[in-house]
């Protein structure tokens, strides 16, 4: 799947951007020139300089170091929320196809109920109930993204579960779980991958919103949303301050959205057509170069003659 995504320019760009951001998250604390919480009030609210590439904040802390440390927290929080959503959505989504009508009805109603809850309000309520921490907030967010995974999984599985090759597999004596693992899961996985990428973007925005409001973080823990909130208080002294964490949020979410698009294209019918057309064009170009003649025009991307089986 990754190889197919890499075939698309959008996919390559997004993978490169996300890899860089992931590296920031993983290596950030090691790359940071200062401790994220090291204060030096003698240099507070300063602009970029050789000592502080992105300037300093209201307590003289190095903005770059805090951004790097904040990358880890923000990304891990988004991953945590989506991870919880995956487990709580995909599993019941698959099981609802095999565990009979009662399980199906109950799980559908639970998911319907969860869909009605607003992200922010529910997360705030959960942190009030369980304590102000990122894990508590992310559990709440994960719970609310679960219905999306549930419905996508279920919809994708339904198109496969009644097909003749699944029936045939059952007739050979395969258990339901084995049927799901061998025949249903490979068809469902691409849809889940697309949803995961998309939900990671949503998760990051929600995480940033919550931490912007001071929910889920314990000061002076740096997060992208929290840094934006602090910088907004000092707009007069440092008008460009909020732009740096905002840009990181924008780039990351845009890359995740782009990756979701690329995944959809690469795993869907039209995407496979596009890739096949591109391969054909490359082959023709190569042949033309070898023959020394002009390059033949490419077929339409959705030309059915190039569609993979």
């Amino acid at each position, binding site marked *: 799947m990754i190889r197919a995504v890499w075939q698309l320019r959008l996919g390559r760009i997004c993978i490169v951007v996300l890899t860089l951001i992931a590296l920031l998250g993983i290596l950030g604390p090691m790359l940071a020139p200062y401790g994220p919480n090291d204060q030096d*009030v003698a240099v*507070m609210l300063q602009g970029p300089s050789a000592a502080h590439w992105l300037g300093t904040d*209201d307590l003289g802390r190095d903005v770059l170091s805090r951004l790097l440390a904040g990358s880890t927290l923000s990304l891990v929080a988004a991953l945590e929320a989506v991870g919880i959503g995956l487990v709580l959505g995909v599993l019941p989504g698959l099981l609802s196809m095999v565990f009979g009508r009662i399980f199906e009805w109950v799980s559908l109603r639970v998911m319907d109920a969860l869909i009605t809850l607003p992200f922010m309000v529910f997360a705030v309520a959960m942190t009030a109930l369980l304590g102000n921490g990122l894990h508590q907030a992310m559990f709440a967010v994960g719970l609310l993204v679960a219905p999306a995974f549930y419905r996508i999984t279920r919809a994708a599985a339904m198109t496969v579960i009644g097909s003749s090759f699944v029936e045939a597999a059952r007739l050979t004596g395969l258990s339901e779980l084995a049927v799901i693992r061998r025949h249903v899961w490979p068809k469902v996985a691409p849809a889940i991958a697309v949803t995961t990428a998309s939900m990671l973007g949503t998760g990051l*925005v929600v995480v940033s919103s919550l931490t912007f409001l001071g929910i889920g973080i314990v000061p002076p823990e740096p997060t992208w949303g929290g840094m934006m909130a602090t910088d907004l*208080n000092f707009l007069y002294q440092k008008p460009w301050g909020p732009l740096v964490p905002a840009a990181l949020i*924008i780039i990351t979410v*845009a890359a995740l959205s*782009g990756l979701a698009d690329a995944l959809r294209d690469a795993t869907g019918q039209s995407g496979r057509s596009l890739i096949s057309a591109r391969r054909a064009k490359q082959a023709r170009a190569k042949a033309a170069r070898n023959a020394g003649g002009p390059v033949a025009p490419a077929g339409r991307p959705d030309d059915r003659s190039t569609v993979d089986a």
Partner: protein
Amino acid sequence: MKRLARSRTLAVGAVLTLVSTIGLAGCSSDSGSGGGSGGEGGTSTLRWAFSLPTSWDPVTSSTGNDINTLSLVYASLTQLDEQGTAGPGLAESWEYNADGTEVTFTLRPNLKFSDGTALDAEAVRTSLLRGKTQDNSLLKDQLSTIKDVQAPDATTVVVQLQAPDYQVPLLLAGKTGAIVSPKAIEENVSGLPTAPVGAGPFKFESFIPESQAIMVANPEYWDAADISIDRLELTVAPDPATIVTAVQSGAIDVATLQPRLIDQAKSAGLGVDISPTLTVNQVDVNSTLPGVDDPTVVEALKYAVDRQQLVDVITAGQGKVTYQPFPPDYIAYDPELDDRFAYDPEKARALLAEAGHGPDDPLDLTITAAAYNQQQAELVQAQLQVVGVNSTIKIVPPGSSTWQQEVYLGRNAQFALDGTVGRESPVQNLTVVYGAQGLMNTSKVATPEFLAALDKVRQTPLDDPNYQTVLHEAVALGVEQNPSFSTFNTPRVTVRSEKVSELPPFISQYRWEGVTVQP
């Protein structure tokens, strides 16, 4: 075409993300005052962005800061002048008996409440006794010095005291002495928190909880001639970062400004008034909680806080370091206490080691702070780290009573970053900060020695040559003995539009006498 569609999808995604991120920024500020409705009620309208009181009934108001807004609709028996000395209010004069157990106030003639009810001695008696006896009264402690109130004639109020107490004229200058209409008390006492009826400079027109209160000038106010504002719209203050813009745009006319924004306001051509206040920031230490129950640890904490750094960062250098709950230049301020517990990290470390907290067994502490105080909390956390104290910051969410519930009533905070706006009487302030039942004395401990010193102050006439000395003795005992400690005094920084004249520098509160607003 596909590529174009994909690019378009990405572009739309990026734009949506940008919009959503900008939306985050929008979350930071309240909706602002909304621009107001013009001057329908008269020729001059003042839009003041501040905070709404916890209750519009002085008897159930739960913070000292409420005096700034309660005094819009209520007049008090006496009134503090700019320096904090008691002067005439509803009462034009007063006189103590020989032993200081009775004080007779003479009311101005022909006073009326904004509802037209006569404001006479009987009304004063009803109002003061309600504060002393009503079940949910939060003035009971302060009025406990009063034994009874008599009204021998329409303009004479005799206040009989439990013991000699020369602080009463000061005590009755704020919300403790705010007089409420007896008609409103009789007809709808439970409605007073949202529909006040007093005899102050303004009378209530409408009120939207957590949003705004609209008032118009009260022609019955005893000093109505000094009030030039026809209509006052009190709104909840917007986000501090947007205040200058809000004043500039005309959405509000006057607001409290964070000192770091003084330059911004001045460069925008707005008026900035900086005046002294009784406000003193303090750390409430609850010595009944584990971790800070050792007096040596508490003493170490007092030396561990770098007050000058707090002044420099939090008040942009506009504040003053103080080690007592009074500002320099105030009568209760004792210069002898200058540099008491001055920042000394070495001494703090030594005291902590003496208490058994070395590098191997550091003290763990929770710093409790209101949401608006996060910067101070992070500074103090770093200062404590210097002396080897590990701390976690707990932010109390905004709300009209969340701080009171967590710190004052719940008494859950080991180390709370608090502050007093001061009280009209220095003894009253000492009682709130260090008294056995003092709101800010979260340990609820006070030595007999300190209580005796307070009594001695009460028994000393304000014009007695020894008054200041006696007062300083009580202050010194409180500072030395109480686990809580003061950090710095902050000035009142106010930004105003060019159409509003300079505000008078009353040390105890905002007042509007003499303030003019161009229509």
